[in-house]
């Protein structure tokens, strides 16, 4: 396995989950040791690096999960780990001036005294980058930096990477979003099963080539699902002139039986809040929400589940899974009362039976042992278990938020297949996503939001990446 990063250029590193991207860059950053081979930095050869040595050599890494100290100020966070001091006492004036200098070089304007917890995600990322660039940074590694950024923030990040490139920094950019490769990278490098399978100038390869290199088989371009003759007979979920203070307003949205509706918008457009309101996590400040049998409004998730609604949260680890509990428990959690005898006593056999019912239907790749801890499964398979939750609880409406975030291409297609099959059986699905390819590949009709308002309703062949993108920017 060989990898070259040249100063003043951006190298995009692609691959499915588990292809070896993270291991590779962690060897560079000194977290792991290579079994064989060497690392050459500016002419000097190293057998292995530890984190301190990697830092001294000018290698900096920005992790997916931002690791700032949230209660400390912006200035302290920028200078963290190398606070200027005199005789053991921190010189606060030097801290502020050095941090201010760094941030202005990067062309950003942040309040130095503000605690980092008060910043938006993109601003926190800038703080991380500023810290990383202190001293002699030769090589900057970014691991999926745009996963949590809004459209404008992504633009700002790209402009910012451009400036770093001009300063002669070598940038290694790990991403799942293929549309970003052409935008930002000079060269591209694809990994599969720990081996390098494609390498070359970024402009030379199209999307289809990159995908087939990643998964090892041709999956082709983004395609619409086969059109289906189906008119919903009943409305399962309906928002009428609904509003939620500071998130969305004047919202009319309905999901009927047997249809997959996409709610598309950039992060911060209000789509996430609509999803939460549909599941009773968030209360409407005005308007109506009707769930199933004409019931008005929802007070909390427990009621939503009783009304036949299932909910897949965007952040699987934080809001979805019980990571240290078994797959069977994770899958049967919302159905416990129904599985229990006299709504009270539950046997692990009935949980295991529930798991067995959905294991093959959802093509969960596991040891098929209901006692296996869910944390030991890959992201895609965890997501399948969490989807199984709502099949077991016989939900009539599914609200799926970012159902394939952090899921590799193969598992993604299986999840799409499951969702389509469910809708054919009469389940109404609302897919809330910020991934336009997901909308194109999955939904029957799409509703696009921008800044808390619906900007477009698209049907059938109108659903294209271009239409979605322009509507999401509020251009309708």
């Amino acid at each position, binding site marked *: 396995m060989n990898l070259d990063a040249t100063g003043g250029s951006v190298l995009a590193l692609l691959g499915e989950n588990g292809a070896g991207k993270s291991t590779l860059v962690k060897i560079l950053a000194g977290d792991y040791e290579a079994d064989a081979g060497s690392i050459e930095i500016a002419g000097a050869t190293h057998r292995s690096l530890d984190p301190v040595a990697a830092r001294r050599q000018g290698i900096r890494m920005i992790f997916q999960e931002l690791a700032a100290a949230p209660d400390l100020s912006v200035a302290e966070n920028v200078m963290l780990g190398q606070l200027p001091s005199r005789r053991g006492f921190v010189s606060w004036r030097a801290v502020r001036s050095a941090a201010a200098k760094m941030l202005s070089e990067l062309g950003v304007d942040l309040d130095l005294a503000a605690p980092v917890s008060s910043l938006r995600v993109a601003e926190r990322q800038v703080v991380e980058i500023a810290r990383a660039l202190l001293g002699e940074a030769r090589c900057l590694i970014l691991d999926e930096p745009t996963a949590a950024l809004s459209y404008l923030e992504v633009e700002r990040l790209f402009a910012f990477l451009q400036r770093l490139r001009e300063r002669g920094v070598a940038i290694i950019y790990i991403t799942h979003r293929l549309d970003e490769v052409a935008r930002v990278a000079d060269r591209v490098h694809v990994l599969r099963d720990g081996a390098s399978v494609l390498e070359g100038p970024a402009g030379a390869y199209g999307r289809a080539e990159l995908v087939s290199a990643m998964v090892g088989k041709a999956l082709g371009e983004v395609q619409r699902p086969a059109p289906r003759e189906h008119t919903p007979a009943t409305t399962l979920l309906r928002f009428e002139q609904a509003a939620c203070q500071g998130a969305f307003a004047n919202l009319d949205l309905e999901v009927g039986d047997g249809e997959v509706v996409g709610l598309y918008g950039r992060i911060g457009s209000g789509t996430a809040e609509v999803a939460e309101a549909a*599941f009773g*996590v968030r209360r409407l400040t005005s308007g109506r929400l009707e769930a199933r049998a004409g019931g008005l409004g929802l007070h*909390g*998730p*427990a009621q*939503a*589940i*009783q009304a036949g609604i299932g*909910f897949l*949260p965007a952040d699987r680890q*934080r*809001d*979805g*899974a*019980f*990571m*240290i*509990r078994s797959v069977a*428990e994770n899958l049967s*959690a*919302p159905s*416990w*009362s129904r599985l*229990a005898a006299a*709504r*009270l*006593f*539950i*046997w692990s056999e009935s949980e295991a039976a529930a798991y067995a019912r959905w294991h093959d239907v959802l093509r969960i790749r596991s040891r098929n042992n209901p006692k296996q801890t869910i944390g030991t499964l890959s992201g895609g398979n965890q997501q399948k278990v969490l989807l199984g*939750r709502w099949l077991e609880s016989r939900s009539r409406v599914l609200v799926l938020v970012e159902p394939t975030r952090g899921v590799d291409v193969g598992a993604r297609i299986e999840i799409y297949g499951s969702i389509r099959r469910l809708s054919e059986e009469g389940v109404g699905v609302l897919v809330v996503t910020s991934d336009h390819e997901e909308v194109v590949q999955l939904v029957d009709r799409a509703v696009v939001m921008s800044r808390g308002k619906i900007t477009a309703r698209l049907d059938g062949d109108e659903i294209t990446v271009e239409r979605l993108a322009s509507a999401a920017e509020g251009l309708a």
Partner: protein
Amino acid sequence: MTDRDRGFSGLLRRLPEASALIVFLIAETIFFSVKSEFFLAWDNWLNILTAISVIGIIAAPGTLLLTAGQFDLSVGSVTAFTAVIMANLALSHDTSLAVAVAVAAAIGVGVINGFLVTVVGVNALITTLGTLAAFRGLSEVIAKGQTVGVEGFETLGTARPVWNIPVPVFVLIAVLIVVWVLMRYTVYGRAMYAIGSNPFAARLVGVRSRRFVFIGFVLSAAACALGGLVLTSQLSVGSPLFGTGMELSVITAIVLGGASLSGGRGSVVGTAVGLMIIGILNNGLTLTGVDPFWQNVARGALLIGAVSFDRLRARIGE
């Protein structure tokens, strides 16, 4: 069997969580039975079980709380509070009335703990640290600092219905079984594990977390009431000093039994083994003539040793 499962570290990883403790329990038993000829006698086993009965009655619902990620540090004070109210009321009123009022008062403390943690949202550690101090003080106030004798209430603590086994041991076993069933075979128990392993996710699968945690605190207080009555009956007195420092023993037993301090893991069977380890250690040290002051040192070292071993095992497992 994969490569990872072979060899010594593989063996360690495949052991069930409680087995290391059981090995320790057996080693401890063998050690003291060699050191003291009285150790293995039936009467000595009854001494050990009687000595851990009150702590065990309280540790059982404590295990349930800890799997939901919650603590109850006020257990010792609630025990004393119950005993003092019972003893003082029994001076002038019917015993059954005194018992009823004392139990109701203890459950009232559980309601306060539960209310502060689930409705007001105060951290459980802080809440129960506060009630620990307040109700120890209130017990002193009610008893005016005095130990009060109780007559005609000996049966619960001292009767020995079969094989010379005292009633508190039966009470302990009954409480352990009830909580075991609760944790293993009820929706409530499942929900408590879920709350402890991920409170956000628990809410999103429809678990009514606040209600369930509230019930957990009430159950803990009810167990303290039972423990307080057993102590009062055993000693024929109610004292405001009952259960001083008991929270340490209770938490030691639970954590020795494999419960995670951050919630989501734990079992009553583990706690029962943890209780036995503590009981045998205290008893064995007494029998072999070790200065009682050393017993606290031994218990502290045991707690740290057991948890360190567990951490090492987890790291090998990674």
